[in-house]
Each structure stands twice: as C-alpha cells, then as structure tokens.
C-alpha cells in the first residue's frame, strides 16, 4: 500500500506512525574523497538517514547540527567552511532524495576543487564516517480526525514519530509534493490557508517539539476562524 492510498481525500485523516530501524552498511570514509565517492553510490535511504537522523535523536536540543555530513566534516576533519556549506543546504526545497544527493555531492566536489589541500585531511581511527540507512515501518494508529478540532486534539498527544512521518518522511523520502497534513487539510477540508501555512514551515531549523508547538498554533488559529 502507498501513502496516497492511505490518505484518501474523501476519508477522515488517520494518523500513522513511522518507526525506524537503523541498518549498518559496513562502509566508512576517512577522507573527503572517500566521503564523496560513497555519497554518489550509496542507496537513497542512506542519504535520507544522514540528513534526518539528528532531528530525532536530539529532538530537545537546539540549535542542532542539521545533518551528519556537516557535523563530521566540521568536527572531525576540521573543514569549517565546507561544514557550513553543507549545513546550510536548504533541505526543504528538495522533493527527491536524488536531487538532495546531487546537491551534497556537488558542494563537496566544488570545495575539493578550489581547496585541494582538503583532500589530505584524514579522520583518525574510530572517527571515520560510518554510512547507515533507515528501514521504516509505517503503522496506522488509533487516532482519527474528521475536522480541524479533532485534528488539533490529536496533534497534542500523538508521538513525535507520527509528526515526523507526516511532515518529513512523506514529502521527501516518499516523493510527495507536500506534507500529509497540508494535503489533507487542503483537499478534504478545503482550508487552503491553513494548509499553506503548514507547508511554508521550515521543519529543519526547529526542534521536533518546537515543530509540534508551531503546528498546534496554526491549526488552533485555523479551527477558531473556521469554527471547526
């Protein structure tokens, strides 16, 4: 079953949760050249994992390193400028992993070209970059919303994993144009304003707890204005 089948625009919104397992690949890089080589050939689920992992494991910590590549390049290789360039890639503008992968790879490639000395930096033993990927399990929960008020109540108590799934996983990894919340609110409830406000959020620059609070604020306002 695909997500588009799970969210049918004639039905209420059923919250799903997304649980993940981390899979190790046994691949590791100790230099920028190796990092680039693997970034080009590893599965898309690896790129997804390393650009989203920190959001979940440090959900309370802000500000936080936005992706593993930026963190490793800065903290281990000491390449602060490249780290900053990788950290500032606007993940939210990419709707496919392929495009995100290309952007990360070209950023590293261009940097090496203009800073060839960077190729000579190596991570010490134990500090290598270990490539991992996520195996995701999508499970329907018992939470179902028929209108914005019910949606609001559920947002307050559903797991962070569920919010994560509907905002991040649905739009990028599963190649959806929008996030699930905006899609349902626009197509089923016809509330394009609330849908657009949610769509405009940049979830990569706030903690997951912060994201929940922002969603609640937007939906509460929308529910008040539309009386339900």
């Amino acid at each position, binding site marked *: 079953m695909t997500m588009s089948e799970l969210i049918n625009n004639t039905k209420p919104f059923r919250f799903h949760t997304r649980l993940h397992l981390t899979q190790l690949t*046994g691949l590791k890089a100790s230099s920028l050249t190796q990092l680039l080589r693997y970034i080009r050939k590893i599965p898309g689920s690896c790129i997804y994992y390393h650009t989203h992992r920190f959001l979940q494991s440090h959900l*309370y910590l802000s500000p936080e390193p936005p992706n593993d590549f930026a963190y490793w390049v800065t903290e281990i290789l000491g390449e602060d400028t490249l780290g900053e360039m990788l950290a500032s890639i606007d993940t939210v503008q990419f709707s496919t992993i392929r495009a995100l992968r290309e952007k990360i790879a070209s950023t590293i490639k261009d940097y090496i070209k203009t800073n060839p000395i960077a190729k000579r930096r190596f991570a010490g033993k134990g500090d290598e970059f270990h490539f991992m990927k996520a195996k995701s399990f999508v499970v329907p929960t018992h939470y179902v919303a028929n209108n914005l008020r019910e949606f609001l109540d559920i947002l307050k108590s559903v797991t962070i994993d569920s919010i994560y799934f509907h905002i991040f996983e649905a739009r990028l990894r599963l190649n959806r144009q929008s996030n699930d919340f905006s899609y349902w609110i626009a197509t089923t409830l016809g509330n394009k304003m609330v849908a657009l406000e949610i769509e405009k959020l940049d979830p990569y620059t706030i903690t997951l707890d912060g994201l929940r609070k922002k969603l609640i604020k937007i939906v509460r306002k929308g529910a008040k204005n539309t009386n339900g």
Partner: protein
Amino acid sequence: MAKLKEYIHIVGKPVIDDLRLIGEKLNGTTIQNINSTAVGGGVAEILSRMMPLFKELGVNTSWDFIKGGEEFFEVTKKFHNALHGLPRQIYKSDFDTFVKTSNANIEEIDIYGDVVFIHDPQPVALIRKRSGNKWIWRCHIDISNPNKRVWDFLKKFVQDYDASVFSSPIFSQKLSIKQFLVSPSIDPLSDKNVELSQSTIDRILNKYKIDRSRTIITQISRFDYLKDPLGVIEVYKMVKKRIDCQLILAGGGADDDPEGSKVLAEVRDRASKDPDIHILLLPQNNIEVNALQRASTVIIQKSIKEGFGLTVAEALWKAKPVVASNVGGIPLQIKHKYSGLLCNSIDGAAFAVKQLLNSPAYAKKLGENGREHIRNNFLLTRHLKEYMLIFLSLYHSGDVVYL
C-alpha cells in the same frame, strides 16, 4: 516486575501505544533468546527486564542458556578480550574447546523459536542447528578492532545468520548479512534505577561507613581489567592531592567471567590501607548500587574497552555528572561538554573530575542534560520497540514497510 502502564509517566502514553501496535503484529511468533548466563553483566540484566514486557505485549518470548564448564568459559573470556583488541595468545586447543562444548550444546539444546535470538559469541555456533526458522546474532561487545584469527573463526558462524545486531556503528563489520544498530538500554523502574528515599540512601552509606558529608567519586563495574579499576585508583590519587574525596569501586561478578577474583585481589592490593577507598563486592545487590550512584558527587567510567557501558546510562539517568572514557558505545551516551566529559587517559580523567568538583553548577547542568538524553534514547521502551522491529524485518523486505 513493572507493567507497561507504569512507564507512561516517564515516556508518555503514545510511546506505549506504539509498542502495543507493533506487539500486535508479532502475535503468534515465538522468540527464543539464548545466551550463556542468567546473572551478571548487562545482557542478562536487560533480558530479565524485557521478558515480562514482551509477554504483556503479546509476544511469546522465552530465554534459554547454553552449558559450559570452567574450561569453556576461560576460552570464551579469552575470545572476549581478543575481540576487544587486547593481545591474547590463542591456541588451536582453544578453538577445539569452543567447538567441543558447542557441539555438546547443539546436541542438547531444544530449538523451538520461530525467531532464535542468540546473544554474544558463546552460543554463536548453535546456528548449525538451523532448520527453517529465522536467526539473529546480537553482538554486545566492541569488535571495532578484533583479533583477526578469533573474528575470522566466529565470522564463519555469523554469516549463516539472517541478521546481526551491533551496539555502535564503529563495531560494524563487512558481512554478507544485514546489520542493525541497536543501543542497549536501562530500565528506569528496575531496582538499579528507581527513585530512592534519602533514608534508604543514608542507611546504605552507613552500612559501608561512607561519609555523606564529603565528596564521593564512584565507579560501578565488574572487577575486570577492561574496566580499568587500577586506573581509577590512580585518578582518585591525583584528585585527592587537590580536593578531599573518597572513592567507591563497587561491582559484582558474572558467572561467565573467571578473571574477576584475580582483578579484585590486585585492586585490594593497590588500594592498600587507604581508608577512603571503599572496595565493595555487591553481587546482584541493585538497590545498593542505585544508592551508591545517587550518593555520588561524580561518577567515573574509566573503561579501556566497552561494549556500551550501561553504568554510564544509569549514572546519567540519575542526573549525575559523569567522566567516562571515549571508547565503545560511551560517546553515543555522552556528548562531550554537553552531557558529560569524555577522557582518553588517566591524567585527562583526573583533570575532568577536578573540573566538575570545582564547578558544581556546570556539573549539575551536564547531569540534567544527560538525563534528558537518556530519556529520549536509552530507555527500555525504545529497546523493546527496536527488537520487535528487527523481528518483523525478518519477514518484510524493502526500506519502507507498511504494516
């Protein structure tokens, strides 16, 4: 034993709801855990806490043990140290002993699980008894720099499993089978971690004649060279030159660790007649361990090698400032200068302990951050979830699974 609903106030109801959702998907599947000991060490401790919760979730789980005499466990201890990268002479006779005992176990043990979950190298050869069911090998130790001869020998068995599980990415090996990352966990409701009253803590300190009014530095660990208790005494002596303090070295032993009494004797000898060094042998006395951790000013974990280091998670959960070696799974638990201090030497550990003792506000902040990090990532509920997902993954291929 605690019930699932008792965890709600710690992790929230939705987390428990998720566990029930996944548990439903495993109804009718039997999980058979096998390891080498029922007591001592982190593996037995985690399993004993998990079993009743699996049952409550409707997952039919059992726990069996292999048999092994003194000779077998001496060999597996040698393997354990060699896998950790320590120099050990390995003889052909060691492999022969391992194979002989393994064959006896293969003969004797009843394999009935739909999923057979093997923990650590001691029972790894049981895979030879495979017959249509699913097998997982769970490696709890640091094999980032293993003795090649021992690892090549064990790898022949490991490659026949369906999947393997490691505690840290740096332990990952090039294998033809799937490898999952699952960190161990602590149980916030176990005797070792549950909240204690001040009177209970005081009673236990009085029992061991430890002065509550003075600084206490503690390492809780098995008496094992890899935990470097002698190094901890050196750290204490360096700190004591500047700051008055007491040292507690406390821990039990494991049935499969024959080296413990030798290490304990050396530690006692090195501590000699210092009345401020308290060496306590506490086999399975979890309330006392809990009280000692809670009474400590700073907790140290000066391991040379570490699979994961659950004692670090225990200390952080009690919001204690921790100084720990930058080895194995410890850096997963401590983000340096954010949720504790990492060190790479005796000198570094002594310096870090002095920093914390001289800056109590900083030490307090590190401890508080550490507690939240453990709440989010290293509690038993997360561990249960990941194990159940691994069991399910054996029946569902692909990167995204719709259940």
